């Protein structure tokens, strides 16, 4: 088995593994982390105050949440944009995604899916388990609790929605959720996202033909041309298109290759405001690195688009820039344009087929 290779690298119980505050194994000195640990006393106090505010807003077990959101949606939005306190993140994610309601409405369903059903994707899922967040302690141990729950959630989903089944990339989303909540909670959050409990459904990212990925890439391509014309032109000249660098951004909502402390801040906003934030963050990255990117030739450009400098990946720099970018109107227009275009292509194909004997 291929997993045999992983054995050699399994987490050793005798040697203590150095991990960052999120549980990822540290390979080298991580500067942002170093900054975090040197928090001053006043910063801790501020953090404490922030948590108290959040607790009050949520109420016991989330009891006051809906009421608060209805009364003060803008306060909630502002606070979420500043980042949900890590200790409350799992709970808040479930509240804002609508997954908590799904869980309560469907008692016993998850257990049924995990225990009694079989999935055509089981082998595909197993093959990828050790290749999902391989540097996180929770997922490193072969057949350990992390890998088991990741398998269960993905298998349950592949049974719950057989059209989607299992697609690579879903594992990173499930994995990220599992670092903040139980298996069953993570499963229902996945359902809430893909089926569209609050925002438009995400399942098109994973359905045959990856239709939503194609649409998002089309929209992103046009947004770049619209909002960063000089860079857009440079990309066109160098024959760079978003499928070369941005498909993972959409398919995994930045959980695949971005620093974890940034990914979760994006997720805070993503769950409350929807996919818009993925476009905004993508544009913000390009905008922040604009002056460097316009100078690079093809290969260096591709490299640059996959390896953004550390300062660009600082959430407190990148996110405010992202919030300042407006995309809603363009996204809507581009969606219609895309639908028109694809309808035409389909029509053309049908015609072609008819003409053929």
């Amino acid at each position: 088995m291929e997993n045999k290779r992983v054995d050699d690298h399994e987490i050793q119980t005798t040697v203590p593994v150095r991990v960052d505050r999120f549980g990822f194994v540290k390979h080298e000195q991580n500067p942002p982390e170093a900054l975090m640990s040197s928090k001053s006393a006043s910063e801790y106090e501020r953090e404490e105050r922030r948590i108290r505010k959040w607790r009050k807003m949520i109420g016991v077990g989330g009891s006051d949440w809906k009421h608060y959101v209805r009364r003060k949606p803008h306060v909630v939005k502002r606070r979420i944009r500043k980042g949900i306190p890590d200790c409350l993140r799992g709970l808040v994610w479930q509240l804002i995604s609508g997954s908590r309601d799904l869980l309560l409405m469907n008692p016993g369903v998850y257990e049924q899916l995990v225990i009694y059903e079989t999935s055509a994707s089981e082998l595909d899922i197993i093959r990828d388990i050790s290749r999902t967040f391989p540097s996180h302690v929770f997922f490193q141990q072969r057949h350990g609790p992390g890998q088991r729950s990741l398998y269960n959630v993905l298998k349950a989903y592949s049974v719950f929605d057989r059209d989607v089944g299992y697609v690579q990339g879903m594992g990173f989303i499930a994995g990220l959720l599992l670092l903040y909540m139980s298996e069953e909670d993570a499963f229902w959050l996945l359902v809430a996202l893909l089926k569209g409990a609050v925002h438009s459904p995400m399942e098109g990212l994973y359905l045959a033909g990856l239709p939503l990925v194609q649409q998002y890439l089309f929209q992103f391509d046009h947004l770049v041309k619209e909002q960063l014309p000089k860079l857009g032109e440079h990309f066109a000249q160098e024959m760079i298109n978003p499928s070369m660098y941005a498909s993972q951004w959409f398919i995994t909502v930045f959980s695949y290759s971005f620093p974890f402390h940034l990914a979760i801040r994006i997720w805070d906003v993503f769950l409350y405001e929807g996919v818009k934030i993925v476009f905004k963050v993508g544009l913000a990255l390009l905008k922040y690195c604009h002056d460097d990117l316009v100078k690079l030739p093809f290969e260096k450009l591709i490299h640059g688009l996959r390896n953004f400098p550390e300062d660009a990946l600082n959430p407190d720099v990148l996110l405010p820039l992202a919030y300042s970018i407006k995309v809603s109107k363009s996204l809507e227009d581009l969606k219609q344009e895309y639908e028109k275009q694809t309808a035409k292509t389909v029509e053309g194909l049908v015609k072609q087929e008819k003409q053929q004997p």
Partner: protein
Amino acid sequence: MARRPDEEYDYLFKVVLIGDSGVGKSNLLSRFTRNEFCLESKSTIGVEFATRTLQVEGRTIKAQIWDTAGQERYRAITSAYYRGALGALLVYDVTKPTTFDNVSRWLKELRDHADSNIVIMLIGNKTDLKHLRAVATEDAQSFAEKEGLSFIETSALEATNVEKAFQTILGEIYRIISKKSLSSGEPAANIKEGQTLVVEAEDTNAKKPCCSS
């Protein structure tokens, strides 16, 4: 634009890495381009890209390699990358017979989406897992002969034959190209410094219509 000396090359060849998920495509690429093997590698989402410049038959060749996600559903995105590729490395895992069985499906993918004169090399990877081998070398060899592909077995982990695999396919591409430019009367050096190489053109139209039902 002036090139720095380290970026000079005679030819630029685009090559794609395809094959089932988990067969080791990304590690073959990292072994070839950076001499690295990553035990903790993540599954590839979408496409990845790397290059390496090397000497092949006395020429400086720059290989521009696109590594693709192996899962079937990703073909919606990845098949666009076959276009204009001069070579394809079709990888299977010698310990997993299904990945070898699927090779013919990958060949069909190439016939449907790639240029008809693309050079294809079949690669059986993970030969380091000797005790788990499940696809015999002879079977793959005779399959490759039947289909007109070159064939090699590799271990990205032990760095066995990786260099040779890339050398071979790049050499084959080079020989075809230099023959072509001879017959068309153009000096081969004309292709120098191009972003992409234009040898695909002439018989793409002659591509056989596929026999899909």
